[in-house]
């Protein structure tokens, strides 16, 4: 027998076995409907769980990307200061982060896929449960024992198959999410322990940052000195009040004059 037929037969026999039959067929309908509602809320919870995992991975990607950007900036700064050794170290750490980020993005895509699948499964089940409710009420309203069993069986087997499918989808999504949560937990621990972003966290005493800070405070002192020397040179007094720093004063000066003359032209017009 073909693979499709074998799977179909086994699936169907399991789905049918799962249906409980009561003495009064009408009770069977109500009981099955209750189980459908239970399954619907289980799918909704499943969608929410997967979404939570997805958001957690998103947050981790953002954190790691920020760390990578900081390391990139450190590498650039190190090169400006002719410290290729520091730049190399920063880039090495950045490339270690890059593989974590790629891995997380793959997980994110998978979780997004699971979330979409479960959302669609929820919509399909919702539509079928709604049909079942209508059919159930019709059967109960026009109940005659002779025909009831056939109509009930039809309704039940259709919904039973859907419930089996959705049950399987939830189970698969839970398995996948559990695996990813374990990995996400490991990355959270790494981030919390500082192993991943220590290298880029400001003022947390990692070596690259310390060296860069030491160098930049020297450079800043030199820049400040140069600025003070510039300011102490003779300047138009009103320009000093208007602008906070020497470089800008020099650059701004011609514009200022232009705008004054523009204004006076406007005034004349």
């Amino acid at each position, binding site marked *: 027998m073909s693979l499709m037929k074998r799977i*179909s037969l086994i699936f169907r026999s399991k789905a049918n*076995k799962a249906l409980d039959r009561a003495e009064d067929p009408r009770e069977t309908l109500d009981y099955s409907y209750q189980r459908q509602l239970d399954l619907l809320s289980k799918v909704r919870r499943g969608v929410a769980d997967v979404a939570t995992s997805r958001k957690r991975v998103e947050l981790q990607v953002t954190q790691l990307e920020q760390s990578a950007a900081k390391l990139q900036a450190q590498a650039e700064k190190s090169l400006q200061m002719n410290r290729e050794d520091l730049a190399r170290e920063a880039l090495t750490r950045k490339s270690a982060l890059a593989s974590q980020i790629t891995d997380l993005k793959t997980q994110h895509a998978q979780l997004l896929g699971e979330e979409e*699948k479960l959302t669609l499964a929820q*919509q399909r089940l919702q539509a079928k449960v709604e049909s079942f409710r209508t059919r159930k009420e019709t059967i109960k309203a026009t109940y005659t024992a002779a025909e009831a069993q056939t109509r009930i069986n039809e309704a039940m087997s259709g919904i039973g198959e859907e419930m089996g499918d959705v049950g399987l989808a939830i189970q698969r999504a839970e398995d996948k999410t559990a695996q990813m949560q374990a990995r996400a937990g490991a990355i959270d621990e790494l981030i919390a322990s500082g192993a991943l972003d220590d290298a880029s966290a400001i003022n947390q005493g990692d070596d690259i940052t310390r060296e860069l800070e030491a160098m930049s405070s020297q450079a800043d002192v030199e820049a400040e000195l140069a600025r003070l020397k510039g300011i102490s040179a003779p300047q138009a007094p009103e320009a000093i009040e208007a602008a906070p720093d020497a470089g800008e004063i020099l650059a701004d000066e011609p514009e200022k004059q232009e705008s004054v003359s523009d204004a006076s032209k406007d005034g004349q017009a």
Partner: protein
Amino acid sequence: MIIRILGEGQYDVADHALDRLNELDATLEAAVEASDDAAFSTALASLLDGVRTAGVAHPADSLDESDLILPPSDATIDEVRQMLNEDGLIPG
């Protein structure tokens, strides 16, 4: 004929498309029996694509049973083997 792809829903497939699907099904079955992972993935993807292409979505609110039921698109060869086992994967 109604074919369900697990995790995706039901499709109405015209009978004339079945010959082609049966060929794909036979390829898939051979891959499962030979435990050939790569052939299995290709065969499953072709079979499911065949159903999606030849079929149209069956109304979501119908309570009709499917004539055929196929594994989900991301199923592994082991999962399909389990599905063929009474005590397998399908929640009862």
